Every structure is written in C-alpha cells, then in structure tokens.
C-alpha cells in the first residue's frame, strides 16, 4: 500500500475500475465520454465547467486532468483562473447564504 492517500500515477489507472465491475464501469465511462462531447455547450465550455467543479470538489486527479485538457484546447491560464473563481464564488456564496438560516434561528430564539 502507498504511504499517501493520493498518488498522481493512480489517475492513469482510473480505467481499471471496470475490472471489478465491468458493466457499471463501462456504463459510467460511456456516460462520461458522452457528457463531454460537443453539444449545446461546446467541449471547450464543458472543459472549463469541469475545471471549476474539480476545484470545488477538491479532486486532485480532476484538477490534473482538466488543467491539461484546458492547455490542450488552447485555453489560457487567465481563463482557467476565472473559472476557478466562479467555483470559489459559488462555494463562498453557498457558505454565506446559510447565514440567513443562522439569522432566522437567532431571530426565532432571541426575545
């Protein structure tokens, strides 16, 4: 066993999850592949969404994968950073909007 939870080399082995459940693994990868095809959204737009979500999910494998994917598509580092800020804004907003819940509770409990 590795001495760390994450090993960059494990990203290459992602496909091997099908070995222990071929049907579900294949269904997942078919779905995954289809999601990222050109559609109503361009593959480029999807790549930037994936990069933002990779950060909010704090998945190091996804950050590796979609940073590289962005570079391959010619996406600039400025565009990538803006996408990360979109993710961060939603994360921050999601925390802060719960402040309303706190305020509601205070208002309810206080005389």
């Amino acid at each position: 066993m590795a001495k760390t939870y994450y090993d960059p080399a494990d990203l290459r082995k992602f496909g091997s999850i099908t070995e222990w459940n071929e049907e579900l693994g294949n269904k997942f990868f078919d779905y995954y592949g289809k999601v990222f095809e050109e559609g109503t959204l361009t593959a480029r737009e999807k790549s930037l969404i994936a990069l933002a979500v990779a950060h909010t999910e704090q998945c190091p494998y996804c950050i590796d994968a979609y940073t590289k994917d962005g570079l391959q598509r010619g996406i600039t580092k400025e565009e990538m950073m803006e996408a990360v800020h979109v993710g961060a804004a939603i994360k921050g907003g999601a925390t802060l909007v719960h402040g309303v819940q706190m305020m509601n509770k205070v208002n309810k409990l206080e005389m």
Partner: protein
Amino acid sequence: MATKSLHKRENELAQAQKQLDFLSNGIFKNGELPTFKEKIAETKQFPLTPKKLEILQLNLGYMCNQVCEHCHVDAGPDRKEIMTKETMQQCLEVIKNTKAHTLDLTGGAPEMNSNFRWFVEEASKAGIQDFIVRSNLTIIRANKKYYDLPEFFKKHNIHVISSMPHWTPGKTDKQRGKGVFNASIKALQELNAVGYGMPGSNLRLDLVYNPSGAFLPGDQKALENEFKKALQDNFNIQFHNLFAITNLPISRFLDYLIASDNYEDYMYALVEAYNPVAVANVMCTNTLSVSWDGWLYDCDFNQMLELKVASKIQHISDYNEELLQQRNIIISQHCYGCTAGAGSSCQGTVA
C-alpha cells in the same frame, strides 16, 4: 528561455545515441510500457514500409535566428551545419526526376543558408506541384536583407508554412523567445499584404501549432477556429490551415521533459493515445528527409537521431527512388509522437 543549443552547451542529450538509449531504457525496458515495435506488431503493422513517395523534405541547415525550447533540431544561431551549394546541386538533380509532388524546405531557418535564393530559383524551374518553405516568420523581420522575402516567396509561388504556438504573446514568447510574437504578427501581416493566406488566394499560408509544454495538441479543427478568430479580431490576420503537431520526445523537448519531471507522464499520454489508423498514414511512409550534408532519412526526426535509411542507398549522391522505396522504416519510441490521437506529421493530423 534557452539561448544556446544543447550542442553548444555540451549537454549529453546533444548526442543522438544518448537520446536513443534514454528512449529505450526505463519504462520501456522494464515492460511498464510497450516499445513502439511491440505496439505496431499488435496490429500487424511491423515492419513499417514506405508507400508512394509524395514529399521530399530537405533540411538546408541547423542554423536559426531563434532558440525555441521545444526544437527537435536543436537549432540556433550557434549551429554551423549548413547545406553547401554542391549538395544543393545533387538535390536539384533528384528534384528534376523525382515522382514526389511536394518539395519541403526546412531547417533551422532555411532562409539563412546563403544559397537559399539561388536554390529556390533553380528548384522552382523543375515545376514541382507544391513547393513549401517552412519559415519561422521572425526571420522576415530579423534583418533588412530578409525584408523582401514575402515578395520573393510570391514570385516563386512558394507555399509558406510557419510556426505559431498560440494566439497570445505570453505562450509564444515563452516557447520561442522574447519578442517573437510581435515579430511574427508583423511578418504575417506582411505576408497577407502581398496576398498570402487570403481567402481564395493561391498563395498558401498555413500555420503550425506545437503545444507549449508537456501536453498533446487538442483537436486540430477546433484550434484552427480559435486561431482564426483571435488573429482576425486582434490583428486582422488571415491564414489558410492550421496544422497541429505533437512534440516528439527528442532533443531539446526531451531535455525539457526530463528536467521538468514530465517525461514518464508524457510517454504514458502518447502510448495511451496510440492510434493504429495514424500508423497507416504516418509521414515516414510518404516522405524522404535529406540532411544538410546529403544523407537520407525516413523523416526529420530520424535525421536528428542520426538514424539513416535502412537501404543500400543512403546519400543523395547515389539517389535511387525505386531502391529506396524497398526499405523498411526505422522506428523507436519517439515514433509514438506521430501516432497519438489524430496522428501528427509536418502536414498536421493524419487520421
């Protein structure tokens, strides 16, 4: 940014054999990844053999005004290997009789060869269908004596193919040197001004895109659209096609991969993206490469690795197309660079 070639720095990767040894050891020796020979054998494509000869590619010398980070030629101002007029004359004899429809001049910066113009004038008399000069663009702005190159190219109906790694200055200058982006933009505008790259124009102007780092090129058509939009909107520049070319793990790019600890990941990426359809159309099957000193190679990459053609005919002075076409193509692990994804060649994707 490098300012000297690996040769000048006496880096051990300047030696072709050291590069070949590196590419055959490690992950390929311990069986982690299949060798290129094993991989193409899986689809019964070994040995790789030539198809109809279409392109004769001549390297006029390794001297260049730029020292690009990724250069597979290890070209630069300090390289003195230049094709002599005598070798050019031998090439002209071959050009007059070849069945190839395309003549492709490369370097270094081919324009820096002092006999370049004479050679183009002579070679154009042979009436070859597609006469390419691979120009790095900045040479056109490097010195007054090159300012008229767009007109010279036009006069001889040269097909200009030029490198442009990105439509933003940062990435371009990082790969190719400070100020390269602005000089390239100016050169492209000058080429447009004489008619190159304009819609419907017979004066062909194509751009070559190389990734500026340890990643593979994206979809060629999508990149072309991005380039066209950005260059048109920002600089009013037009061009015909974009060729997306994968960086092969040799010479300065190999040095960069090793130094930046990207070598293994890059080789994995190439092997994972292996496409047998690309193997069938890989450029060594329709091209012959001639070095500055007249030796013959399966491609420009094999030339840099000093892997001469496996034929009794190895030099332009003994050229015999029929015999050369009977050879087997020499391969090594660098060949994965031409078979990844949609494939890669000096003419862009192949699959």
